[in-house]
């Protein structure tokens, strides 16, 4: 799987409101930021998986009224995203993934579940 293939698949999944991640079929490491090899073991036996969209906030910061967070997904990988609702943000709060299109670009965001 080459990088172009991975990015194309990510874009397709984003448009279908699916959060993708990459699983290494050799060592089982899961990661979000695309490489054509596993950053843990170097294997190129990778597959793109679909996250169930459930996770929690690992850490967050509020700047210019935007919440920037590290989100830890149930599948065991972490990624950066903004949080869409601000009411009761805290570390370990449960979130679900939602998708927003800004400037012709669809990206995943976290939505806090109270």
């Amino acid at each position: 799987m080459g990088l172009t293939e991975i990015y194309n698949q990510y874009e397709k999944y984003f448009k279908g409101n699916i959060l993708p991640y990459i699983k290494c079929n050799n060592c089982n490491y899961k990661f979000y930021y695309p490489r054509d090899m596993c950053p843990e073991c170097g294997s190129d036996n990778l597959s793109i998986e679909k996250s169930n969209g459930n996770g929690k906030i690992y850490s967050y910061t509020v700047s210019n009224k935007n919440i920037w967070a590290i989100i830890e997904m149930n599948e065991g990988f972490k990624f950066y995203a903004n949080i869409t609702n601000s009411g009761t943000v805290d570390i370990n709060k449960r979130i679900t993934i939602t998708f927003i299109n800004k400037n012709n670009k669809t990206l995943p965001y976290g939505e806090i579940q109270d």
Partner: protein
Amino acid sequence: MISGFAEAVYKKYDKSAYELMNEALSKALDMAGIQRSDIDGFISTFMPGIFDDNVYMHFFTSQICNYLGINVKYMDSMEYGGPSVLAAYYRAEKLIKDGSADNILLLFGGKGSLVKDRKITVDSYEKINDGVTNTPYKSLLNGYDNINPVSDYALAAQRHKKIYRSTDEQRAELAVKQRINANLSGYSMFTGDLTVENVINSPVISDPLHLLEIVYPVDGFHAFIVSKSAGKLRPVKILNYGEAHFTKLPVEMDDITLLSASESSGDFREKIKKCDLYELYDSFTITVMLQLENTGIVERGKSGKFIENTDFKSNGDFPLNTGGGSINRGQPAYMSGSVLLYESLLQLNNMAKNQVKSANRAFINGIGGWSRSHSVSMIIGE
């Protein structure tokens, strides 16, 4: 050994970055008592925007040697961000020892104000130019709202608060104690009375970090000349050295409060505890706290209590950032490494106004680079 050192630092310098670097070099040559023609080695670093607003500078080490009129047989560039100068110092000592050069100029700095005026940092330069890509993951990192690198350290501070129960007041107290040293240093840019309330009531830039616990980008260069002998200066040596590079994105780390400093300091933990003064990278208050914990000076999670209970003055039980640190000196071109080394050399040469008595060993730790990957730990002295 360092035979000459100098700084040229301004809040906002009206002239060119090249004139500013020449000022630092001229002062360092004066101290070393050597001529420009004696310089035969050169190490520097480049970051976007810091040399008169250029995004990139083709073959920059060669161009700067050309501008300054120095002819060298060795040149190099360090890419560790803030601690680059410390790693360059270590390499220069080795190059002198193996005979590669006789007098190596370390020239670090630039104009931070031009980048600041664009309301960005060197880390977010790609935001203002669609054609500029700084990472392999731009399409998945760009498009969100954040203010890196402040946001990155804020995420670490927030996590530290949650896991270790550190408080805003403890971080503020560190800023206050560094200001006390700044008021005595004689060369800090930001001086005057400062209280914990002042820090807490200053604007929140990236929650939980406040304006008064964040460095202010300024214009400045530092020049250090490494030679075979220290000349008129004290023969200060690098007694212990370590560097480490955690290149994972913070988001892919298991624990964002665990720094590469835990590895760079690993070989000489006990010696670190016996130093006479401590210069720890202070891009933000949380940076100092994480280094206190990751270099083994205090247990992990205990830096907040340590700040409350410890006197950081030059005559205190733990002289820390005795020049007031970069938070009060200003951060030249988004790199504080030179500020740490400069103050350490003042102290070891008994040239500081806020002088530590019998200063024989200084522990310096620098943190920086893309997503704070790099750490350089060193004890220098005699």
